[in-house]
């Protein structure tokens, strides 16, 4: 059985994700005035259309192409020794140390601790009326599911199909879909954990919420 507390401790020891930036193709590299340790930012604005920090420029066939930071973080490596040289594709240019946010840590833990029941195709999903009543009446954490149980209705262009749950028995910990919203195929619909694991997960999530505050 997965030890969630240990998992959290291991994340806390190194709450970072190192992102290695590589060249998309061959070309000649040049670098802007950036030093190791500098703070860089990823794409911003509501639609993520404002580009991130410029890390390097890769020029091939007189076509300079910017290499931009994909995430917020600290620049821990910048291979300025490659400046002016011709490099192969997939050459490491820089490494960004991205500090994990609270949502990301929660996501990592839940991904490992929960069984995710995924959408078989792109459609809108609803709970069956009985399930819906139960979920509204009580907390979803107390709603039990078992393999083969009729759980959801898949609705696409007014075509409604009843969907049976397949997976380990347990309780619904998280619901990932919203009313009247299309869910892509393969996206998680619900996260299920065993009754025994529930207190441990709740405690860890609570710890994350308090300990990651302000980071």
């Amino acid at each position, binding site marked *: 059985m997965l030890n969630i507390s240990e998992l959290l401790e291991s994340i806390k020891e190194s709450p970072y994700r190192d992102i290695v930036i590589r060249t998309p193709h061959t070309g000649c590299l040049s670098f802007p005035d950036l030093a190791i340790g500098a703070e860089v930012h990823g794409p911003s604005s*509501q639609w993520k259309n404002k580009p991130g920090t410029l890390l390097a420029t890769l020029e091939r*066939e007189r076509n300079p192409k910017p290499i931009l930071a994909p995430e917020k973080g600290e620049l821990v490596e910048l291979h300025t020794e490659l400046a002016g040289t011709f490099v192969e594709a997939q050459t490491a240019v820089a490494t960004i140390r991205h500090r994990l946010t609270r949502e990301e840590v929660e996501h990592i833990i839940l991904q490992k601790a929960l069984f995710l029941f995924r959408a078989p195709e792109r459609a809108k999903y609803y709970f069956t009326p009985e399930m819906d009543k139960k979920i509204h009446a009580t907390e979803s954490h107390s709603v039990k599911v078992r393999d083969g149980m009729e759980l959801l209705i898949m609705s696409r262009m007014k075509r409604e199909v009843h969907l049976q749950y397949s997976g380990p028995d347990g309780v619904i910990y998280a619901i990932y879909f919203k009313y009247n919203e299309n869910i892509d195929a393969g996206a998680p619909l619900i996260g299920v954990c065993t009754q025994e694991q529930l207190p441990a997960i709740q405690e860890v999530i609570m710890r994350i919420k308090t300990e990651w505050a302000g980071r």
Partner: protein
Amino acid sequence: MIDNNIEKRIVALQERLIYLKDIFAGKHADDSDLLQDRLASFSRKLRSDEVSDPYTDIASMEDLFSYVESKLDSSVTAMDRVRIVRHPQRICLRDILENVYDTFTEVGGQDEYSLDPSILIARAVITRHRGKKTYHQPVMVIGQEKGHGAEFRNGGSVKPWGNAKAMQFMRVAETEGIPIHCYVCTPGSFPIEDYPGAAQQIARNIYGMAGLRVPIIAIISEGGSGGAEAISLADKRIMLSHGYYSVISPEGAAAIEGHLKEGERASSELIEHCAENLHITAKDNLGFGYIDQIIQEPPLGARPWHFEFFRTLRQEVIRATDEVIISTRALPLLKTLAQNRHARPTANLEHLYIHWGLSAGARSRLVALRQKKFLRLSRSAASDKRPMYNKVMELLSSYITKPWNSFKYDFYRKHQRKIQTFVEEIDNEWETFKYRLLSPWRKFKHGIEKKNNAKGEALMALSEWTKDSRRKKWNYLSPRYKIDKTLTCPNSAEYGCLDLWGPDLFGEFAGVCSYCGYHFPMEPEWYVRNVFDKDSVIEFNSEIEAGNPLSFPNFDERIRKAQEKNGTRSGCMTFEARIAGIKIIVAMFMGTFRGGSVGAAEGCKFVEAAERATKNRYPFLAYVHGTAGMRIQEGTHALIQMPRCTVAVRRYIEAGGLYVVLYDTNSFAGPVASFLGCSPYQFAVRSSNIGFAGPGVIKETTGMDIPPRYHRSTEALARGHIQGIWDRRQIRANLKQALRTIGGRNLYYR
């Protein structure tokens, strides 16, 4: 204890002081300090009962205020006028309705419970007398309502649906046959694209007003750009002496002149400089001929307590409506008599009743007069360097072509159709008979062909690559095809497009990404040479030259550079051409000439082209390689092209012409909001952007962030602004098809 009446008068003086300080924004501090000190001292004395005759003292205090206001009135600058019309104490439309008209009923919403509270529509009545008889004359009053600082009024910045509402009630007035009084009090239109779309709705309004069969009087207080044009194409345009009428707000002009980026603010000096050089005042516009009359306001501008001003306004509005009605009279003698009677300064218009209804004939004359009036405007602002010989020859040829075309199309074509139908029917019968007759011979021939299957083999074989004829596909290639470099498609992150080699991209691919279909911008020449039949393009009016009619500082040099760079004298090229033998007139706006901005010269060329298309009965294509809007450095000379060119388009369409617009690269602002947006057939080249204002302006005026690709042609298509999107390589074929399918019985083609 202070008398309540005195208290009220003190408050009024305090408000006048605040107003004075606000409109001069720190200037003339000596005068405002003096008034402040005097008023404070008077109030203090009054409260401590040191004043023996408060009524005399307050009267002399009011006289002092009036004296200072009169003194400062002569030093009001253009920017001060902008602050005057935007001040919450400025008269608003409701004040006018209450004081100028006898009664009124607000229609189309009330206060904040309205589709758009920034536009106010009312059915109002003016009561006049003749002898013992009383006449109630109804009018439709439409105007932007700023309110006295009411936030929901949005400063008179009308949303697209507000302008649509205005148009709706103009149509109601037309049905009822009553005059329309438009009060223009807007800093500009609210620049959003939601249906019906800022630009497209203004275009519909201008187009509608160009043919509205009732008298329209426009009274301009704040005439801000396209928003003003949406309700100001009128038979008579009157301006309030302290108002402004401009192509762009001085702040907007300063942002462009100062090359400011998003979020940066222009300095007050630069804004003042722009306001001065844009020539936005009533006096300037009367000089240019874009307004017919100025109504003098009280010193420092009219405020709600200036009742004498409302009386003057009422007289002038009645006079203007009467004059328009009189101008449509068919009998010259009666017309002159009535005009003379009204021209007398002592004439009491309250007792000079004139019926405001028009006969069918008078309505037609009214529309014709309005259209001619606008077509005459701004001719001197464009530098027409056509040789006299050419002008004379053109005039002479029109004397011959006009009757010839009338004979050819109005008489001969009518009978020709009957003959053609008869011949076609005979031909069909003959073909059927021939088919049956030759049937045995075809069977025999088909047997021989089956044996010789060489053609089929050739189709199955691999293509030959012995000679690279790929580049011969186009008559003209962009000069960029000679540059050995690769380019990255802007959609590469999304669609994974690989880099494109320049010579391929700008040669064979015609600037189209072969992975996602993104269209890189191409030169105007590419279209001229590749869309139309080879050697069929004949340019005309190339001698009409863009200039600097307002002597805007440093602008001569910038225009000269644009002319050198493009090798043309203006941003609009007009030519006659053929597509698969179909003759067509084209007006092309080049995005490479100062962003494709439209000034007096471009407008003049467009109008001439529309008139030529009408005369020759050819289809008319406006190809917009790119346009950034009206040329702000030409001020109202550029702005007036919006109604002017739309009038030309309306006359052309009503004469039976087929007007097609094709947008490419970026098309924004004034032209889209007038003579382009009014076309019933608008198409766009793929990857182009169409809209009213760019993202920066939208952010600044509305505070909204807009999503990327907000103005993309696909969005415009989804909103219903355009009718289709064409691939650049298919423009010729699509145009050909459009001319053949849309061009019908009553449209000019071939």
